[in-house]
C-alpha cells in the first residue's frame, strides 16, 4: 500500500527529508512539463524544476496537510516561474502581455502528428502567460477551478473567464 502524497510531505516536514525522493519520482515529470509549457525551454525548465524541489525542502515547514499536496507543489512551481519571469522580463511579469517562447520540438513523431503538435505548442506559447497558466493548470494537471483560484489568489470566475478566453485565442490562432 503506497502512502499518500500528503502524508509523505508531512514526514518531510518533520525532518525525514530523504522522503522527498518519493515525491520527486512521482511528480518531477509533471512539474517539468508545466514549466516547459510556460517557458518553452527544456534546459531552463529542468533548472526551474530543480529549484521547485529545492524550495519544497527549504519551505517544508509551510506545508499543511489539510492542503492537497499537488496544489501546494504547483503553487511553488508557479512562484519559481514568476520569479524567473521577474528577473528576465520584468515588464512581462507585471502585465499580461504575450510571452513569445520558442518551444522545443519533440524528436520522434510522424509528420502529420508532429505538425499538429508543433502548431499547438506554438499557439500555446503565444498565449499571454496568465491565460496560458490557467489553461495549462486546468487542462494538464487535473486541478479544479477552485484550486487554481486559491493558487493564483483570484476568484473562480476569473479562472473561468481566463480559460474561456485562452481557448478563444487558441481557436483564432489555429483555425483562422
Amino acid at each position, binding site marked *: 500500500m503506497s*502512502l499518500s502524497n500528503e502524508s509523505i510531505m508531512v514526514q518531510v516536514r518533520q525532518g525525514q*527529508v530523504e522522503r522527498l525522493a518519493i515525491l520527486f519520482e512521482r511528480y518531477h515529470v*509533471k512539474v517539468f512539463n508545466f514549466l516547459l509549457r510556460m517557458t518553452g525551454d527544456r534546459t531552463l525548465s*529542468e533548472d526551474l524544476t530543480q529549484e521547485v524541489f529545492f524550495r519544497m*525542502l527549504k519551505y517544508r515547514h509551510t506545508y499543511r496537510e489539510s492542503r492537497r499536496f499537488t496544489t501546494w507543489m504547483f503553487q511553488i512551481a508557479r512562484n519559481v516561474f514568476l520569479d524567473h519571469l521577474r528577473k528576465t522580463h520584468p515588464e512581462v511579469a507585471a502585465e499580461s502581455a504575450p510571452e513569445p517562447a520558442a518551444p522545443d520540438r519533440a524528436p520522434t*513523431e510522424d509528420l502529420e502528428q508532429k505538425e*499538429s503538435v508543433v502548431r499547438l505548442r506554438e499557439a500555446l506559447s503565444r498565449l499571454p502567460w496568465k491565460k496560458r497558466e490557467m489553461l495549462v493548470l486546468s487542462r494538464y494537471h487535473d486541478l479544479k477551478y477552485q484550486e487554481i483560484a486559491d493558487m493564483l489568489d483570484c476568484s473562480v470566475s476569473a479562472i473561468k473567464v481566463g480559460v474561456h478566453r485562452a481557448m478563444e485565442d487558441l481557436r483564432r490562432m489555429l483555425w483562422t
Partner: protein
Amino acid sequence: MNCEEIRPLIVDYLTDELPPPRQEAVREHCRRCATCRRELEDVTTLWQQLGVLPEEPPGERLRANFYQMLASYQAGLDDRPATERFRPLDWLRRHVWPLSPAWQGALVVLVLVTGWLTRPLLFPRGPDPRLTEMQQQMEQLRTTVTLSMLRQPSATDRLQAVSWGARLNEPAPEVVTALRGTLDGDPNVNVRLAAAEALFTFRRNASARQGLLAALSRQDSPLVQLALIDYIVRLEESRAPQVLREFIRQPLLNPAVTKEAEKTLVQFGEL
C-alpha cells in the same frame, strides 16, 4: 439562457465545472441551437487536441542533480554549528556522569541491568510495522531509480544506477537481471566493473552468482576479467574450476589474466 450566455460556459461544461442544472441547460441549448452546437464541437475538438500534446521526459541530469541536492541538503542539516545542536553525550557527561570511577562502574551496571529487565516492555512485538513499510518503500524507490538510470546513455548515470542498486537489501529479480545485462553488455569498463561488484554483493542470490560465472567468458577487458576471477574464487562455488578451465582455453587472452586464472586453478588443485 440565450447564445450569449451559453458560449462562455462551454469550456466549463466540458470540464464538468458547472452545477448540474446549468450543465443540463447548456446540453439542452446546444441540442436546439445549431450555432452553439458547432461552437461546442469546435471547443471539444480543441480541448481533445490539447490533451494529446505529449508529455515530454526531462533529461536525466535533472534526476542526478536532484539526488545530489538532496544529499547536500541532508549533509547541510548535519553541518550546523555545534552551538545549535543538542549533543546528548555532552549533556549526559555534564549532568549525569559521576566523577568517581567506582560510581561510574556502578552506573554502567545499573543501566545494563535496567535495559535487560525492561527489554520485553520496550520491544513487545518485534520491529515497528511503519518502519518496515518505509524501508520497503525506499527499496522500491531504489529499484525504480536503478532500473530507469541503467538505461541512460551517460556512463556516469549508469554508474550511479549500479551504485543505487548495490545498496538494495533484497534486490528484485529484474534488478539482478539488469545488472547481469550491464555486466555482459555495457560499453564502459567502469560500469561493468561496478556491476560485477554489485552482483558479488548479492552473491547469496543464485542468479547473481550465475551472472558472475557466465560473464567471465564474455568479457574482453583484462581489468574486468581479473576482477571476475577474484569474485569467482570468493564465491566458493563448485562450478568455478570448470568455468576457469573453459576460460583459459580462449585464444588471445592477456598473459597476466591467463596467469591469474592458472594460479587460481592451482589453488583449486586443478592444475
